[in-house]
């Protein structure tokens, strides 16, 4: 029978905290950047101009339909050779994860916009609004409300996806726990603690998302 000893992890607390800080900070960056890419992807895929639509759709499908682990490795090892630019592991993984998240955000944002009844933008147009005005004043305020739960869900997935950056030696929570596991010869305790840390952050967040969904169901 295995003798659990979690006490041994205490001496690695700064390492873990450091890793957790990188994980959280990284998530914030890739969620924000991902939303920017998502906005471009969504509006691009709704554009009146076909070339713009095609570029946006190519971006969305390329990143949705390839594994994120492959993208991370490709951005770090292949892209520098193709583009002739050196990237640090952090830049490469931030870029890959943001674009990956952005492709999913694109679909959520696009779906939210097209879910608004066409009569709404028609009413805006009939008042004399330009398409931009009716998007800003009429469609988006209603669409954003519908997008929020799905965007939150995708962001939670993004938080978990940051664990993959350890393959590029980005010092996130998983990477630091690998260091701790090798050093302490206690991988079971280490990875159990890491799993608990992820869950401790995500469970409250999922509860908030679920509340948001219920609230949305009531208000419509």
């Amino acid at each position, binding site marked *: 029978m295995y003798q659990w000893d979690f006490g041994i992890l205490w001496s690695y607390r700064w390492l873990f905290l450091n890793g957790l800080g990188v994980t959280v900070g990284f998530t914030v960056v890739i969620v924000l950047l991902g939303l920017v890419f998502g906005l471009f992807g969504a509006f691009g895929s709704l554009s009146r101009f076909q070339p713009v639509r095609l570029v946006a759709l190519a971006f969305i499908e390329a990143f949705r339909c390839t594994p994120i682990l492959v993208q991370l490795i490709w951005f770090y090892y292949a892209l520098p050779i193709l583009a002739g630019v050196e990237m640090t592991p952090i830049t490469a993984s931030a870029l890959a994860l943001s674009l990956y998240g952005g492709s999913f955000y694109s679909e959520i944002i696009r779906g939210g916009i097209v879910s608004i009844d066409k009569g709404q933008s028609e*009413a805006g147009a*009939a008042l004399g609004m330009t398409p931009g005005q009716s998007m800003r004043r*009429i469609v988006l305020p209603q669409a954003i409300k519908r997008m929020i739960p799905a965007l939150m869900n995708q962001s939670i997935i993004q938080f978990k996806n940051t664990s993959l950056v350890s393959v590029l030696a980005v010092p996130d929570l998983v990477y630091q726990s690998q260091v701790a596991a090798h050093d302490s010869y206690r991988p079971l305790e280490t990875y159990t603690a890491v799993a608990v840390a992820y869950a401790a952050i995500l469970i409250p967040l999922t509860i908030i998302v679920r509340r948001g969904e219920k609230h949305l169901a009531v208000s419509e």
Partner: protein
Amino acid sequence: MSETSKIEIRALRKSFGSNEVLKNINLDVAKGGVVALIGPSGSGKSTLLRCINLLVVPDGGSVRVGDISFAFGDGTKLPDVKSLAKFRATTGMVFQHFNLFPHMTTLQNVMEGPVTVRRMAKADAEKLARAQLAKVGLAEKADQYPATLSGGQKQRVAIARALAMEPDVMLFDEATSALDPELVGEVLNVIQQLASEGMTMVIVTHEIAFAREVADRLIFMRDGVVVEEGPARQVIDNPGEAATRAFLSHFHRTGALPPANATS
């Protein structure tokens, strides 16, 4: 007639795919005139109405409202979004399904056009919006959201929203078709009041008795063409075409308007 007409439509054509919904339509509406468009569903009457404010862009022909005109067809450039928006700001439209903005109060719905399109100061827009709401008998509903209103009240708010742009022309697209029967009267009353104030209007409707009362001209459409056109009472009471007669035989053509509770 073109000298004094407010709306002038010439040789208008529109197809959706291979389906030709408007075939060479001509239409004149005098200043202050009220034209009722009737016909079976699929006759093209709603499409024609939507071509007047270019919510539907025609394939050919020309549309003029007031001083602004557009030509369509081979060799013409489609109007850009800015001039389209400017053009639409001079016409008000009321939809079958109201299309109120659900994230705004009644008052905000009515203020939206003046503030966003006419760049009116908020205080002035609010004054104007309250006056328009009072006009349709809903002053006390200003701070409620559309979801809390009845269908008839929603449609009256939609009329107030259109009127707040102070349009020269009002277009009604089956404004009472989605209403419970007992709520039709309050909306028709508001439209009738507008007619008596001299508003130029084009009304797509299935309320034949109402059209007979309010419209001075009536157009019967079928399969994308104007079958018959003339003074409303004359066409309704003595239709000249067999198709018009057959269509009108489904309706009560006379009688009082449904009772209105305009203050409800």
